[in-house]
């Protein structure tokens, strides 16, 4: 099959699914809509696999397939094509998107079974997949931006899916507008690159940018990448634009799994990896990315400890884990960032779907204080959720271990890294272990606190199947990227497959030295040890000694409250930016528009009216007056002429 045809199938399939379900949105059968949508994504998945196989068959240096559908915008030197690029990086991304996406579609069939607007739901879901594919495959920043805004739109629609609830509609709006702030910066970033390099094609930028390697703050590469990074903080929920993601949990839970954990929110990370040669040319930007990343890790993890809504905990966890990916990018470890993106897609999608199963079982109850002991009722959900928990903890052998360890090690070892980055990262890992164990303990373990009227029940097989597949991936997904130091002691010395696969995409960090194996083992031991201790403490506290927790939080009440209320960042934004802006707008409307400009025009109008009546009074029909005016005029004119 020709590559163009394959690409067309890949992209068109979810689009057609969207249109079919969109036009039959009044139908209520979850099975029919769900099957249409799932099949659409599955076809894309098959196409993605075929692309991947095709790349496999090529020589490593030439692994790239460009499908160009022709020109989109052409104005003088600006020329943008509908070009889509499959290379080792984007081929893996589309596998994740369509693969995990397919599982989540299947899960949704069960989860959304009772919803009236299920066809609309699946239409939006397919629309999202379509845009995500465009984002990932787009060969220029502008095509990428099409998907970038498109996924934001899908996210807006899905967060506000139950729009009769004002809160949910607001959450969607908040997500879109916050993202738009990032998008505006993204636009500026594009303009900087276009003016400096004369192109917006990503491949060409990657080739051109290293020629301007710079150390200043105002250089082209630095400014351009900084603006793109601001765009990334919007989409990928980093400081300071992360505030929309926790609210985004208002959407149906599978949406949280697909969009707000596995795929869309990783777009910012993907962008940086995609353009890694450009970012490497701007060390200052890299530093900013690493710092923002690690701060987000710690900030979000600390909030995660205090939250009681199962989805909110997972949401802050996602923000925090995305922080790790940015940390990795910031220290130049792009492979590690991608690795974590992938493993996180598995285990976080798993846990979100698991939470969906729990919420389903609990009849829409999301407060973990009202759960406990669910292990008994939901054995499969518990078992699969536990795999996700072990993975995110970084338990040796599970997928999250390999990727997180790699990031922590690189943040220490890379010439762009620093010991403090490692320390904060390790602190984040410790906190992660705590809040995730707390979540497990409060939800599944210990005594049941389930209200009497609720009878939890295990979910249907159609929902459990995706959980099982994702659980398996969460366990074994890490074996494609076994770090060198571990591979060295394993039988057969397995290679880091992922690093090999991405070898031609990811630029090596300049000035990186040979790894010190002993040091690497030590750091790994420290972070794993800290996480274990932390998980153990959380387990003891939340399974057996909840009174102790209560009395402790009472003791540090002000601090606890502050964290519980998310450091009041939302209040800060509203109190100091949004509300003043609205008040300002009201005032400029009332004072400048109505009272000032309009008044001025009335005044001008009156003046004209006055002038008119003055002129009218001159035309009094009296011949003598006219003669006088003529005389006066003559005198004035003559005076004027003589004065010159």
């Amino acid at each position, binding site marked *: 099959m020709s590559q163009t045809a394959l690409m067309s199938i890949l992209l068109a399939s979810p689009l057609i699914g969207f249109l079919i379900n969109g036009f039959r949105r009044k139908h209520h059968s979850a099975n029919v809509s769900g099957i249409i949508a799932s099949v659409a994504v599955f076809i894309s998945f098959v196409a993605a696999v075929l692309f991947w196989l095709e790349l496999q068959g090529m020589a490593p240096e030439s692994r790239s397939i460009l499908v160009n559908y022709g020109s989109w915008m052409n*104005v003088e030197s600006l020329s943008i094509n509908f070009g889509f690029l499959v290379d080792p990086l984007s081929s893996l991304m589309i596998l994740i998107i369509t693969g995990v996406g397919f599982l989540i579609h299947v899960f949704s069939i069960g989860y959304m079974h009772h919803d009236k607007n299920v066809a609309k739901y699946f239409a939006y879901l397919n629309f999202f997949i379509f845009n995500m594919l465009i984002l990932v495959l787009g060969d220029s920043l502008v095509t990428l931006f099409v998907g970038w805004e*498109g996924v934001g739109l899908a996210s807006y629609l899905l967060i506000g899916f139950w*729009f009769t609830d004002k809160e949910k509609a607001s959450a969607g709006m908040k997500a879109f507008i916050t993202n738009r702030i990032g998008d505006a910066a993204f636009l500026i970033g594009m*303009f*900087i690159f276009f003016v400096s390099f004369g192109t917006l094609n990503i491949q060409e930028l990657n080739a051109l940018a290293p020629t301007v390697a710079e150390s200043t703050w105002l250089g082209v590469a630095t400014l351009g990448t900084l603006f793109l990074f601001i765009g990334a903080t919007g989409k990928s929920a980093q400081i300071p634009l992360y505030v929309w993601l926790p609210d985004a949990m208002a959407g149906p839970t599978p949406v949280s799994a697909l969009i707000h954990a596995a795929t869309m929110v990783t777009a910012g990370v993907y962008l940086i990896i995609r353009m890694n040669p450009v970012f490497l040319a701007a060390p200052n930007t890299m530093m900013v990315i690493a710092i923002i990343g690690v701060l987000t890790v710690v900030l979000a993890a600390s909030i995660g400890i205090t939250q009681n809504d199962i989805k909110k905990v997972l949401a802050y966890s996602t923000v925090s884990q995305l922080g790790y990916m940015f940390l990795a990018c910031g220290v130049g470890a792009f492979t590690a960032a991608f690795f974590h993106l992938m493993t996180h897609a598995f285990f976080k999608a798993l846990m979100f779907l698991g939470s969906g199963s729990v919420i389903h079982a609990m009849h829409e109850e999301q407060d973990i204080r009202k759960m406990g002991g669910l292990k008994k009722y939901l054995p499969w959900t518990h078992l699969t959720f536990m795999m996700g928990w072990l993975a995110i903890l970084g338990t040796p052998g599970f997928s999250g271990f390999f990727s997180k360890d790699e990031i922590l090690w690189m943040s220490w070892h890379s010439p762009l890294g620093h010991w403090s980055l490692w320390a904060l990262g390790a602190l984040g890992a410790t906190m992660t272990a705590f809040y995730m164990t707390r979540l497990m303990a409060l939800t599944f373990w210990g005594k049941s606190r389930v209200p009497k009227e609720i009878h939890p029940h295990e979910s249907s097989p159609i929902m459990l199947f995706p959980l099982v597949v994702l659980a398996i991936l969460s366990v074994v997904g890490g074996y494609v990227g076994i770090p060198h130091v571990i591979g060295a002691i394993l039988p057969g010395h397995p290679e880091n497959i992922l690093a090999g696969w991405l070898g031609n995409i990811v630029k090596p960090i300049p000035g990186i030295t040979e790894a010190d194996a002993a040091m690497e083992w030590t750091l790994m031991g420290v972070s794993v040890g800290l996480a274990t201790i932390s998980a153990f403490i959380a387990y003891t506290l939340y399974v057996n000694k909840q009174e102790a927790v209560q009395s402790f939080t009472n003791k540090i009440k002000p601090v606890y409250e502050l964290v519980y209320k998310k450091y009041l960042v939302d209040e800060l934004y509203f109190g100091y930016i949004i509300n003043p802006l609205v008040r300002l707008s009201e005032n400029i409307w009332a004072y400048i528009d109505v009272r000032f*400009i309009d008044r001025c025009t009335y005044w001008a109008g009156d003046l004209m009216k006055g002038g008119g009546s003055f002129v009218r009074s001159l035309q009094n029909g009296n011949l003598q007056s006219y003669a006088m005016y003529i005389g006066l005029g003559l005198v004035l004119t003559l005076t004027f002429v003589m004065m010159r």
Partner: protein
Amino acid sequence: MILSTLVFLPVLFALILALWPQKNMIRPMALVFSLIHFAVGLIVFQDFDTSTAQLQFVEKHMWIEKFGIQYFLAMDGISFWLVQLTTFLAPLIILASWNSISEKVRGFHICFFILQSAMLGSFLAFDAILFYVFWELSLIPMYFIVGIWGGSRRIYATLKFFIYTMAGSVLMLVAIIYMMYLTQQAFGQMSSNLLDFYKLSIPFIGSDFFSMQTLLFFAFALAFAIKVPLFPLHTWLPDAHVEAPTPGSVVLAGVMLKMGTFCYMRWVLPLFPEASEYWAWIFIMLGVIGIIYGALVAMVQPDIKKLVAYSSVSHMGYIIIGLFVMNHQGLQGGLYQMLNHGISTGALFILIGMIYERTHSREISQYGGLASVLPNFTIFFFIITLSSIAVPLTNGFVGEFLILLGVYKASPWAAGFAVTGVVLGAAYMLWMFKRVFYGEKGPLVADEKHPLIDLNVREFVILVPFVIMVFVMGIFPNHFLKYSEASIDYLVKNKSSYQLTIKGEQ
């Protein structure tokens, strides 16, 4: 003869309507007429040569010999799409007025067709006096449309509209006459031919505000700025829009505002190149202020129509900055944004008209939960909203992107401020959308006695062309851009020696 046909066919239509005996046939006839007019407009597609900046379909006859005033119509890449936009919107506007104009139907359609003539005339005229006649003529039917079929404060709004625009026009007339006098001096024969105006070299001294070119530049620019409207001359617009009947608002936003921005491209930039360049900063600054100011004020409007009116101020600001940076992307983007604004804001006013016909209110706070009652209406409104906030693959994105890129090339700071409009635009539109369509049902929506009915066939027929245009222009912009490419390339490269020639003439 095609251009004369295009311009005067509506007058003929108006005459027929005036004389036709049966009253109940007026609407269907007007609709058929407008479709014929649109079809006639399509003829120019065939013969239009996109490879040249020269004037095409030229019609030139001496009108008043003594003053060198000519009847001179011609088309080039700059006016091509605006003419198409004007004829494209007409049948849709007539359909949209089907129910909302229930009194003096005949009079309304006569006014409307005369307005069409006047607007087309001002796009196509290449003689200053002829242009001025059309320009002024367009005011009169609009005055009646708002004044007779408008809302409760219509007299106030029409007066404001009239005085504002007249004030600008008078200055322009003085400038035109002065330029005719200059042609007399330069060529020995007075002429109001625009091509002769282009040949003038008008003295310009940057430091001297009273140098001839600067004065003439401001006389023209002010007249057009009022029409656009450019901040701070915009306050007539919200009142006019709120009081105008739906079709009036659509013509006003869809086409009449573009007469202002179009004339910057046709008159101001090529006639006064040095002054335009020297004083560009004022217009870029006012444009940027307009973008932000319009968006902020739109955000806090309680009336949905006023919100869209202020959003026009914001969108027109984009066009102005695009034009004044004088590069390819800016000008092409500006021209494109003129079409976009015609489509998206035109459609928004029609949509607002549709909901107003059902509820007789435009108070945002009285709505809520409309999406669950009128799902089809919601989808259309949402798509047009996306176009208005420039989501990629809709028409709005192409225009905004090109403009901002062009502006960035000329002035990164201006682009930096203008780009906030991208955020604010999403904010005011989506906030409005949320309050009107989402949440619990508001008093107007929940009213049991008057259940709201979703779109009927007529309304579908009106809205579908808009939606098609939104996506066609968003996905295939090259097909549109190529028509203006040669003209804009010529304008950018020869702005200080702008000498349009007539195709086929040497």
